[in-house]
């Protein structure tokens, strides 16, 4: 059974378009995260939600809007896509405290042309 799943796995789109990536976890975790991995493999947190409430919001353009309809889902919507948005986006989930392992999804490779 897949613990953290993301759809789609690949996303190729034109500049200026709007796209969404979906994430679901079946681990019963309270907290979910979005990370961006750039072409140099550097991973940086973008957002974190705990029980549907935003708790971490790093310096991310307003074009990125996360939405958590319930604690098992965290979606990422991106408006007006730019070339620099091309990256691999990872969703993760965990119980909230600092010593708990985060479980990562397989990633969504976004390519903006």
């Amino acid at each position, binding site marked *: 059974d897949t613990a953290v799943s993301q759809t789609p796995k690949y996303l190729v789109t034109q500049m200026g378009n709007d796209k969404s990536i979906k994430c679901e976890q079946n681990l019963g975790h309270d907290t979910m995260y979005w990370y961006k991995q750039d072409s140099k493999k550097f991973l940086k947190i973008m957002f974190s939600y705990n029980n549907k409430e935003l708790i*971490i919001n790093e310096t991310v353009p307003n074009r990125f809007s996360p939405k958590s309809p319930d604690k098992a889902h965290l979606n990422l919507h991106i408006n007006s896509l730019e070339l620099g948005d091309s990256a691999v986006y990872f969703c993760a989930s965990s119980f909230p405290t600092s010593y708990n392992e985060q479980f990562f999804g397989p990633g969504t490779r976004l390519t903006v042309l």
Partner: protein
Amino acid sequence: AQSVTQLDSHVSVSEGTPVLLRCNYSSSYSPSLFWYVQHPNKGLQLLLKYTSAATLVKGINGFEAEFKKSETSFHLTKPSAHMSDAAEYFCVVTGSNTGFQKLVFGTGTRLLVSP
């Protein structure tokens, strides 16, 4: 604030020889430290974690790491490399006064294993 420095961007070993991936951290709080592995075109998998219990931590696939507070280090080792160990390894620190977790990743070390 937390930060992590992985001292080597690439490490090359021969199969059967020891592996050492170096990591130094900085943290304003009592840190939790993790090593994650990423195989090509895959997600991240936890290898091991330190959470203020034993300073020598054993993980999966024969990996272990030692927390040394005096040196602010958390180096990853394995006695004998296997071809399947070739991957990207990330040292990660977390810790906060809010109770909520925020992982800070190092820049990664690519482990190359030759026959």
